[in-house]
């Protein structure tokens, strides 16, 4: 893949300029921070996305890949980060979808099962072809995805974060199978955030950062530390923003949260607390429990174990509205779907919280003038670039949408703000504005839970940080200055666990 560039509408540069090559029979790792462009690059190779620029050579021949069909013709297969499985069908059905065996013109389910079983024995995967996908554990689903690719006769297999959702045992099993495939001269690309895994089975590793390729290295000749440094790859200079506020009393106390979904423990006995004037960072590689933690805290998920205590009041089982009323605000991770109303105007998305307050009402009416003033002030204070507050949210860039969402929530936060990836994908100027605003909130006796995959952001803002790995808190650092980014990376990647955390790997 040569000089690939991909810009998502309207202006998100997912891949800036990437050149990537693959040798036959190798296991090639693709590493990089969240949002570095790994998935996008692979989607381009598999024909799910179209590159804006660049060429793909296959055995030195220039080829065009417009769709997965083209990719499959070149015997390239991909296992997606999020499974693409049909839950109500059986394993065999899933594996042969699109390449169904036929007998007398009919779908030959027996044959499909046979194919599945054969594949299983060939690659040492024990699997019952007639089980429904919905009954499978995540590990098995993963296997089905891999078998789907194998059934299509792929020789190049792309695995997008295959181990993110697996237990250590399942991971071991997967690696065993990958090694078998390698022996058969299959070529494998594996996207992963777990650097130990790279060391364990890969031959080469390509590191991506912000849409660019940092380099490709032989795994033998590079250490885990070096990889992680190259991934993060910036100087840690404590930001001038950082004020020296002393945290006050505890506002929010999280006691032993546990949550199981689909048989997997997503949160495992998580306890921590946030104090007044404290910004507590939550870091971790995506998929290690951040999402579930925020869902529990904002009231979306109610059937968890443990307790959430705000200023001595338990919020266990309260609705989203009740939790908001209690003083907890929330910046959702997905601003497009959850944070703003793309079908409406800026004004409408801005006033959604204020409109409930008596102060902004006039008897049975909304106090339009006050709400307009409020919207104007948000737009001005946060520098939202728009023509008017009645513009469609749709017409704004991602960064500006995020400003509106964040602004609304920051202004609303009375006790605690949960900020989930508040600056993802927005430009540096906007990031600065938002950081300033978060800081100003901190000076008002409020607590902030900052969930971010951007370590620089964490260093810039947070006093203290907890690290999530596999649904557990593996480290709690009370003063972030006490830990360097390398050590933080080691916690995130599950290489180290802080003592006394009670978590074992």
């Amino acid at each position, binding site marked *: 893949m040569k000089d690939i560039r991909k810009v998502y509408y309207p202006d998100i540069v997912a891949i800036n300029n990437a050149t990537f090559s693959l040798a036959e029979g190798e296991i090639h790792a693709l590493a990089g921070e969240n949002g570095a462009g790994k998935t996008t690059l692979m989607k381009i190779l598999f024909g799910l996305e179209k590159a804006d620029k660049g060429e793909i050579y296959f055995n030195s021949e220039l080829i065009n890949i417009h769709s997965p069909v083209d990719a499959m013709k070149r015997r390239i297969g991909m296992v997606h980060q999020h499974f693409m499985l049909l839950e109500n069908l059986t394993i065999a059905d899933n594996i042969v979808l699109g390449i169904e065996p036929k007998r007398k013109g009919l779908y030959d389910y027996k044959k499909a099962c046979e194919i599945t079983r054969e594949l299983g024995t060939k690659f040492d995967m024990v699997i019952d072809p007639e089980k429904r996908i919905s009954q499978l554990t995540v590990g098995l689903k993963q296997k089905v995805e891999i078998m789907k690719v194998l059934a299509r006769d792929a020789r190049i297999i792309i695995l997008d974060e295959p181990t993110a959702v697996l237990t250590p045992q399942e991971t071991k099993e997967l690696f065993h199978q990958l090694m078998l495939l390698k022996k058969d001269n299959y070529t494998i690309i594996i996207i992963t955030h777990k650097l130990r895994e790279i060391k364990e089975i890969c031959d080469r590793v390509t590191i991506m950062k912000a849409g660019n390729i940092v380099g490709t290295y032989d795994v033998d000749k590079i250490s885990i530390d070096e990889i992680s440094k190259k991934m993060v790859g910036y100087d840690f200079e404590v930001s001038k923003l950082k004020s020296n506020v002393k945290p006050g009393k505890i506002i929010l106390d999280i006691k032993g949260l546990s949550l199981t979904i689909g048989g997997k423990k997503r949160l495992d006995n998580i306890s921590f607390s946030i104090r007044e004037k404290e910004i507590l960072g939550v870091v971790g590689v995506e998929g290690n429990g951040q999402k579930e933690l925020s869902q529990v805290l904002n009231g979306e998920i109610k059937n968890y174990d443990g307790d959430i205590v705000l200023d001595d009041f338990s919020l266990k089982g309260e*609705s989203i509205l009740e939790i908001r009323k209690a003083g907890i605000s929330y910046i959702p991770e997905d601003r497009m779907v*959850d944070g703003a*109303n*793309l*079908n409406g*105007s800026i004004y409408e998305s801005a006033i959604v919280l204020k409109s409930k307050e008596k102060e902004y009402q006039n008897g049975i009416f909304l106090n339009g003038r006050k709400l307009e003033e409020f919207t104007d002030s948000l737009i001005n204070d946060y520098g939202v670039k728009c023509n*008017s507050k*009645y513009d469609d949210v749709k017409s704004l860039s991602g960064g500006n949408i995020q400003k509106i969402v964040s602004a609304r929530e920051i202004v609303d936060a009375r006790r605690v703000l949960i900020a989930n990836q508040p600056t993802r994908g927005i430009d540096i100027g906007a990031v600065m504005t938002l950081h300033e605003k978060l800081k100003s909130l901190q000076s008002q006796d409020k607590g902030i839970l900052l969930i971010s995959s951007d370590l620089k952001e964490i260093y810039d803002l947070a006093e203290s940080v907890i690290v999530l790995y596999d649904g557990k808190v593996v480290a709690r650092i009370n003063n972030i200055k006490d830990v360097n980014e390398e050590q933080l990376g080691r916690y995130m990647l599950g290489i180290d666990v802080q003592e006394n955390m009670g978590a074992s790997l």
Partner: protein
Amino acid sequence: MKLKDRLVSYSKKRGFSFQTFFFESLKTIMAVLIAYLIAIIIILIVSDKPSESIYWFVVGPFSNMMEFGELIKKAIPLMFAGIAACVIVKANQFNLFTEGAFYVGGLVAALIAIYIKLPAVLAVIAALVGGGLVAAIFGYIPAKLKSSLNVNEFVSSIMLNFIVLWIGVYLISNVVIDDASGDTATQIIPEVSKLKILFSGTNISYGLLIVVGIVILVKIFFSKTLPGYEIKMTGDNENFAKYSGINVQRRVVMAQTLGIFIAGVGGATEILSNYHRFNWKTLPGYGFDGFMVTIIAKNKPLFVPLAALFIGYLRAGADLMAFNSDVAQEVVAIIQGVIILLIASERFFSSSFFKRLLDNYKERRDAQRMDVMKNE
């Protein structure tokens, strides 16, 4: 400030984009033109005197005051049904009990008017509100089933329509029947309860004022009140509404019940304006019409009356055509179907379609200019 600046600032304030408005209007106009073209082709095929037929169809409704009044009279129930559907669709629901609501509203209004003796204005108000309320109670059933059990409101409301129809027919042919009518019908609705003619020389009743009032109230409801705002947010993006602490379930039920209430008042108005007894033995068909009207109105309350007038115009024209020539009035159904299909489509004549057209044109024009320059 100059007028133009004022206009610009006002339109900006209202989130008004001239370009979008222009393209959206263009799309609607194109849809209407295409549909009319199809209608005229059909008329040319089936009519022996096509020019006469087309004349009545297109110009007839404006030929005199009374015919124009007929247009308005036909548009009034469509406005009711349209604004009712508008409220429901704002919450992204499809509760078709608006149909049954017209029936229930009309029947209950007639019964209140007949059996409860009240002084003048109060008699009318009681009948209208009573009709709306009883309809809303029925309409609450599919709404609640949707919100708490996720029963498809479309299917359940259609079933409910049939149920209320037969209950109504039962009542008027057994319980509240007036033998003297010779028909299966209620007694005569007393004059005090009736909606009087608004403009003499036409059949336009005070119902026009009521529906215009309701349209304005709905507009205010959505732009100026909290529940209205929350319903709109829920319909636009349920996730956003949920995360912002809006009680999505409650708003979904509220929008449906409110819409059904308006449809009930619509049925009441229709009966109190244009009937002397309640004697409906079939559903009036306004339920589906309402959804059609609100689609054409782009689900904007203030456009609903315009869309209703347009459909009223189509139907009045078709009526006159059927009356004066040899073409069946049902030709309008074809026009209506085509218009909805075209207007509701996202791809056909979308803004981007026009933009592309414009871009292509510009490209070609530029290329031509280049050619010209080269040749020079």
